[in-house]
């Protein structure tokens, strides 16, 4: 079974649907107390679009598309670093009780 253009699309579709289902389960399993960090992480990972920006910024020379690509890289990097760091800050605040670890359920 060779991968033709429509086949490629269906594969994308398969991955897409599976990822949506995973997204549904994973996000609902996030504890409400961590919904703010969740926003931080999704912000950071949505900047994976940097992959596209790097492709554009890749070729040598200095044409329009390369400049756009570089701007894209800068913007996405702000988000990546900012998003992960702010999430890190938030998460490192969440602490267990220090003494007398009474288990509450």
């Amino acid at each position, binding site marked *: 079974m060779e991968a033709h253009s429509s086949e490629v699309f269906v594969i994308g579709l398969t991955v897409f649907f599976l990822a949506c289902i995973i997204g549904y389960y994973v996000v609902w399993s996030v504890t409400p107390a961590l919904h703010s960090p969740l926003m931080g992480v999704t912000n950071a990972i*949505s900047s994976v679009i940097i992959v596209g920006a790097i492709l554009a910024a890749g070729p040598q020379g200095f044409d329009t598309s390369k400049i756009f690509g570089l701007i894209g890289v800068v913007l996405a990097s702000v988000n990546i670093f900012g998003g992960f760091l702010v999430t890190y800050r938030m998460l490192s605040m969440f602490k267990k009780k220090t003494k007398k670890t009474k288990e509450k359920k």
Partner: protein
Amino acid sequence: MVAILYLISALLFIFALRGLSHPESSRMGNIFGVIGMIIAVFTTLMFKSVLSYYEIGAAILVGGAIGSFIALRIEMTALPQLVAAFHSLVGLAAVFVAAAAFYDPVAFSIGKVGSIKTASLVEMSIGTFIGAITFSGSVLAFGKLQGTISGKPIVFKFQHLINALIFLLIIFLIVLFVINQSPTIFWTIVIVSILLGFLVVIPIGGADMPVVVSMLNSYSGWAACGIGFTLSNNLLIITGALVGASGAILSYIMSKGMNRSIINVVLGGFGGEQDTGASKDNSDKIVKQGNAEDAAYIMKNADSVIIVPGYGMAVAQAQHALREMGDILKKEGIEVRYAIHPVAGRMPGHMNVLLAEANVPYEEVLELDEINHDFPMTEVSFVIGANDVTNPAAKTDESSPIFGMPILDVEKSQSVLFVKRSMATGYSGVDNELFYRDNTTMLFGDAKKMCEDIVKSLSA
């Protein structure tokens, strides 16, 4: 090889979100996310066509420095603004990536300049459209949250009609663009979309911005999926779906917590009913007032206290003083717990982060379902800067705009203390009859100041 590395990176992103199911595993999750991103970036750098390492490295450094600086300096109370601001950048980045693809389609293997594949053109322009809307919408949201722009919803006539017409115009432009591939039209789409972003968000009240930000977040996830389809890049598809699902679910949770329909949210134009329902005349009812000493006395003699923080606590930055108060009470042998409503504050999980910042152990911080049945057995509810989330009108008054919203049953505890500055209403603009109840004592003042005063009285 590339595909495998991208797959690993996508799986790491999934585990990053999965880690957030518990505070314990969340730090590890964040690390997974970082590793995933590093793999994704380095894999892309290894592409044969990518040669200008210095420029890209410099760009990452510049962006990274700015991002790190902001992330490390920001106050936790300013989180909603921060998310909005970061968010506008994602939108803008998407626009630039689309533009770059348009000017150099070869680098993305989607055709040649002037003869780009139709599917890619459609995708590209939709990406641009969503990116631009996300950008301007988030900028406006940032302004409203930060207070730079008035948070008041700005309403004018034929608003929705105008938006609809602009939307049709954009569709028309996209069709035109796909046919003649003109740069002029491309940039026209960008500008008109930016305009639409502003117009869609402008009638929405400042406090509704988190829902808007979350919705835009979701949209941008789906846009990333779209780009993923064009590039046959599963990493983008999977990540986009995760982000899309996350934004959609968070918006759903928020709108459910506020008793708004999700349609209402998607259509925009909400947050305008700020003044309805507030008109009931309560000026002749009697309100029991108290001061910090009274509060200290009441709590000192209780067995159990539940603290209900809300938006006002965040505004006043009272979390540290509040925790200090809680610590003293705990030392006296009083059971102290915190009850968090799903939409307390101004973004999901906002209160949890603030309390965590103030070193409150997360076991003492409970969600609505976990603690709501404990109020009848509790002596004192200490409501600080919260209002709507305790309003029993949500259960009794069918005409109230918040009717049907789940609330924390503070009124079932033996006595209720309310810390706020005035008799003013909260975000929803609905009067809270609890203020007039016999077992309620109002403690007027700034939340932080009040906590500090109570701490003084308790220590005296």
